[in-house]
């Protein structure tokens, strides 16, 4: 085992507002190894997204430290791609132009970026739509464009904040397969935040269950599948290992809803 790619040490986060303060995280510890896919599940409103914002460097922790490859995070990093719940495509840009926003902002070589985007669009079956505008696309296609936009800056680390939650069930399963395949093929490190337990189990190598607010890591489940090859998220739902994982995580979360 080498050094973790992402590490949170004793991280606390408190939001201040006029009508009081909210403690989102209290002494949270977690680490993600290079190439690992970690999912975070927890009761709603427990501060899952806060973790991603801290790793992305758009928020600073109240206490504790957030590290990338052993160095403290000081601001947004070019090595991180952040995929949000909604696609937030810009209506006034074509699919290709939307995907190039990252390289544009970071001043990367646009010719290389354009080739890269074309390859990614091809992999996601969107190449024919590169000159289309977002309002001409379905929800699933829009979210795929958002994925390509996230990957266009070639990040080492992907932060996925419930990226499928706005999609219908069918589209969601298909897209989860695609995203998992692309991320694993490119050896990306990924942190997925979701409230969908099956999604977490079937996509991740490891699932972290958070407590209610203020959140800490309550338990950790390393997900293992029998057989020589890892099943796709869709197939994994039918594997015999799936249900026991699901039951355990579900019960843990249930405990919070009652308390």
């Amino acid at each position: 085992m080498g050094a973790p790619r992402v590490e949170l040490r004793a991280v606390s986060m408190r939001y201040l507002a006029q009508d009081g303060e909210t403690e989102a995280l209290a002494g949270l510890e977690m680490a993600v190894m290079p190439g690992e896919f970690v999912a975070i599940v927890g009761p709603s409103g427990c501060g899952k997204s806060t973790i991603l914002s801290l790793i992305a460097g758009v928020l600073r922790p109240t206490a504790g430290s957030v590290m990338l490859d052993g160095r403290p995070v000081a601001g947004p990093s070019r090595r991180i791609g952040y995929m949000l719940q909604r696609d937030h495509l810009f209506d006034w840009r074509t699919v290709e132009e939307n995907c190039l926003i990252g390289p544009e902002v970071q001043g990367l070589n646009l010719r290389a970026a354009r080739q890269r985007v074309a390859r990614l669009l091809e992999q996601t079956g969107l190449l024919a739509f590169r000159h289309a505008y977002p309002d001409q696309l379905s929800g699933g296609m829009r979210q795929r464009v958002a994925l390509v936009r996230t990957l266009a800056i070639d990040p080492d680390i992907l932060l996925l904040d419930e990226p499928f939650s706005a999609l219908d069930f069918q589209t969601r399963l298909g897209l989860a397969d695609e995203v998992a395949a692309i991320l694993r093929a490119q050896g990306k490190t990924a942190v997925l935040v979701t409230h969908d337990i099956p999604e977490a189990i079937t996509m991740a190598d490891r699932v972290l269950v958070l407590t209610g607010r203020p959140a800490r890591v309550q338990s950790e489940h390393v997900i293992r599948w029998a057989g020589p090859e890892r099943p796709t998220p869709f197939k994994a739902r039918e594997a015999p290992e799936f249900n026991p994982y699901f039951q355990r995580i579900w019960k843990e979360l249930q405990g919070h809803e009652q308390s």
Partner: protein
Amino acid sequence: MSSPEHRAYLRRLRLQRVAVLGAQLLLLAVVLLLWEAAADRYWVNPMLTSKPTKVWETLVRLAGTGTLWRHLGVTLQETLVGFAAGLVLGVGTAVALWWWAPLERVLDPYLVVLNALPKVALGPIFYVWLGDRISIYGMAVAISVVVTIVMVEVAFRSVDPAKILLLQTLGATRRQVLQKVVFPASLPTLLAALKVNIGLTLVGVVVGEFIASKAGLGYLIVYGGQVFQMELVMTGVVVLVAISAALYLAVSWLEAVVTRRFHLRPKDA
């Protein structure tokens, strides 16, 4: 391709459009005829109302001597320069307020009051400060700039914060956030502001000319009133109607072009 029902529906729509246009033209004709008849038969005093044929004669005469073009040119130039200056100043101020949020918070009540103030009341002040030529531009800018600031500033502030967050996670600078999200997202509002402004600027210019100038359509109208030549006044008004319509159409055309080019959803003013 289309069914007989669809063709019949399209025919009905076309008929409706023709009927509406016909009614509009008819209304204009009736008003002009009534006006002419009322003056001819002394239902009203023609000294006070003039009449369409006289207005037309005046228009042709003034066009022949070049007087009309001179006044029209002066008013048009003042309007276009005032419009451009109001736009640049208004958008520039809105950008500054977006950039320094504390500035916006401090200035907000003043903007609200300035927005409510009838700007024509400032006319005499501009006349004293800026003289008879420049005060017209002052009036034109004063009347349009505050509306522009307020409209554009509100549009800037209402850009989806998640879109801004998206750019920030990519490491965008403040300038890039403005350039890549805030400005393009506000473009429909900016275009709507232009449509409001072109009319307002014309109001400012004409009021400015009333107070100060030696030329322009506003001057022509005031002069006609002072020497009691109502056909001159009416002619001035008719020409003003024509150029305000032309300017509005020009701005609408610009809006359509920009909307298509940048694939925007148009916004109603």
